[in-house]
């Protein structure tokens, strides 16, 4: 019994040391990314400006696009679910905008290294993680604009806000972390498997319908509902929907699961990215 326990202790000690070492590397790497925040900001503003440079409405498109999508989905699915909701458009918006951010972050993240990264990687020294951070930050800026627009719409519709709006900052933090983590994962994996860039887009569409965004979770029979608990986006969007639309406290499970899953995805994404980033310059 005694030798067994000591070997357990050793394993525990070793894994604790490994974990401590990993944390140190991670903090050091993230600090370096932070030191290059001016580059990140520069790229983000470029992204936002250049994307709509030649169009007449310009930056307004960042608002018009989600608004149109919201309108279309409201027209199509509002008829179906009208009985369940006071303002279907608000319910839809509270989930859809967060989803659009996630889809944008994942899509642009998968191309972060192989597209923009490749032009800079071989020419100047930059921490490689700058590129997925840029794409996610650009998506986040768009998300903030659309969120503000939604809240204005809600005020206009005389939606009654409750104290549970305080969950919103937590929801946004979880969403940003999760989007960032998925971005880091995809940016890294796409370097090795180019097909992922195209695959991401298709998978996201399927994932969209598997998440309660256009339909309420109440529609799902109780005995099948557990299936949704495996979907990380369900937990995060639940926080948005309860705080914005329902105005009631979120389920405890979601409140715990959302931050844990987001942190896990972000940390593993960062670890994998930092583990392989040295090779990128040879592979892009």
């Amino acid at each position: 019994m005694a030798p067994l326990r000591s070997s357990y202790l050793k394993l525990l000690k070793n894994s604790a040391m490994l974990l401590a070492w990993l944390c140190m590397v991670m903090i050091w790497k993230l600090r370096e990314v932070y030191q290059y925040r001016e580059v990140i900001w520069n790229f983000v503003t470029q992204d936002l400006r250049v994307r709509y440079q030649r169009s007449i409405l310009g930056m307004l498109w960042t608002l018009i696009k989600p608004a149109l999508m919201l309108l279309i989905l409201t027209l199509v699915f509002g008829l179906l679910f009208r009985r369940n909701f006071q303002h279907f458009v608000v319910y839809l918006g509270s989930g859809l905008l967060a989803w659009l951010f996630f889809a944008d972050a994942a899509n642009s993240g998968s191309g972060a290294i192989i597209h923009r990264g490749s032009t800079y990687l071989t020419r100047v020294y930059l921490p490689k993680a700058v590129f997925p951070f840029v794409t996610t930050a650009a998506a986040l800026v768009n998300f903030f604009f659309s969120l503000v627009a939604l809240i204005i719409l809600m005020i206009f519709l005389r939606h009654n806000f409750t104290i549970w709006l305080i969950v919103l900052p937590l929801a946004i933090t979880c969403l940003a972390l999760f989007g960032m983590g998925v971005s880091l994962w995809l940016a890294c994996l796409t370097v090795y498997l180019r097909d992922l860039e195209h695959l991401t887009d298709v998978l996201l569409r399927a994932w969209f319908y598997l998440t309660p965004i256009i339909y309420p979770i109440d529609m799902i029979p109780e005995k099948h509902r557990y299936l949704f608990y495996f979907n990380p986006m369900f937990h995060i969007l639940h926080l948005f929907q309860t705080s914005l639309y329902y105005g009631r406290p979120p389920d405890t499970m979601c409140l715990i699961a959302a931050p844990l899953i987001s942190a896990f995805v972000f940390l593993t994404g960062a670890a994998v990215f930092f583990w392989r980033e040295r090779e990128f310059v040879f592979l892009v």
Partner: protein
Amino acid sequence: MEQRLKSHVIEVQHLAVEFQLGRRHGTLLKQKLGNLFSQKVKPPKVEHIRALSNVSFKLSEGRALGVIGANGAGKSTLLKTLAGIIPPKSGNVFVRGKVVPLINLGAGFNPELTGRENIFLAGAIHRIPKKVMETKVREIVRFSEIERFIDTPVKYYSSGMMVRLGFAIATDIDPDILLVDEIFAAGDAFFRRKCETRMRKLVGKARAMVMVSHSMPLIQDLCHEVLVLHRGKVVYHGKPRNAVQYYLENCGDSGKL
């Protein structure tokens, strides 16, 4: 000990860099799936090439090092490794101070942005605070002589204008260590002369410089010591005049190496 460490600004020990030949892009799903179903589809064989092997040298503060060698000798690879762009396969590279590479001038430019915006982008990439950059913009624009085009997107620039702007930016952000790779190829004779004057001033000001060029007079004129590379190895390291002579005698087709 401290003194010795400080005096060497660049220290390279047994540096080796390897590249893959052939498969440059990551595998495609097609190839992986193909392998699942049949044994015939084999991934193309990966061949490695040593771009640099066992390169060691030290460079003291205030010195300028020239690197010469035939095409493919590994000169640019050496500079990129010093700049931290290419990770070494083995060996150590110590560089003390802010490195500014003048490699492929204007390469860091974003074609969609104007010249002025690119100045700030370059400043950010080299971690110069925006406030400091604002004081430098006028001088950069003046030196590059492209005042009229500074608010035009860089994609409409000629290659000469690009080089002018790139050179003006890179030399105006007070580098500690300057890495120069054959930058006078574009640009007219007048601008080239202007650049050479500024380079001479910079060599005095920067803590060290490593310069790659095929122009022997320029190397002999600007550098204190010269490294001759041949197929990734250092074959000579010494006084510029001797190194150039060694290079010309030994590295050509009829040479002994």
